[in-house]
């Protein structure tokens, strides 16, 4: 059914693919909408650790860290996949097999890169992540 199909988005940026990849991942904190996180206190920073099995997490003003995902595929500067590891009751759950995925691919021309994002909504973990983010 179309209504539960993955959300697919893409954007073209005036940059090299390498730069686009680095800003998306290492620079995640510089652009991620700050209202969207699962911590219980205001967010300080958001991180994606650039390696297979890398943590995706935020830090909060109360000194806590909140994991929300894990890098399951790391192929710079082409593609990476994150598992959204948030359950129905807003809790972190470590099992990648039960997570939704967000896949981001980067392609390039002369001076532009295209970042395509592909988030799997079918298991509704994405929905859960969004709901959790709305808390703040």
């Amino acid at each position, binding site marked *: *059914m179309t*209504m*539960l199909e993955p*959300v697919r*988005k*893409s*954007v*073209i*940026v*005036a*940059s090299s693919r390498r*730069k*686009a990849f680095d*800003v*998306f991942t290492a*620079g995640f904190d*510089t*652009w*991620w*909408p700050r209202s*969207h996180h699962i911590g219980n206190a205001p967010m300080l920073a958001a991180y994606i650790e650039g390696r297979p099995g890398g943590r995706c997490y935020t830090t909060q003003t109360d000194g806590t860290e909140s994991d929300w995902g894990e890098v399951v595929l790391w192929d710079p500067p082409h593609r990476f996949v994150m598992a959204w590891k948030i359950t*129905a*009751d*807003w809790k972190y759950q470590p099992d990648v097999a039960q997570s939704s995925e967000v896949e981001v691919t980067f392609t390039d021309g002369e001076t532009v*890169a295209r*970042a395509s*994002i592909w*988030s799997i*909504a079918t298991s*509704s973990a*994405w*929905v*859960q992540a*969004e*709901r959790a983010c*709305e808390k703040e």
Partner: protein
Amino acid sequence: METYHSQLDALGDPTRRAILERLLAEGPLPVSQIASQFPVSRPAISQHLRTLKDADLVTDRPQGARRVYAINPEAFVALREYFDRFWTVALQEFQKQVERKVQ
């Protein structure tokens, strides 16, 4: 925004998500048939259906002596649009940041 919140709340339960997936796959079903598929009591299923109905995710109509539940496609379209908008905004921020760093 309130509708989204109640919908997201309603989706925050694995049994309710399973009910929705079943209604998506099989079309409208009476409560008895939905309940027979789950290891929870029929009153519990009725409660879940009420929550889903309050969030506009399902609709119900009488059919003879029983009530038949169905997915409300409009709600799902709205929810999808919400995620779509979220990613649009996030990617715009990403684009601004990339292009700022290039200059």
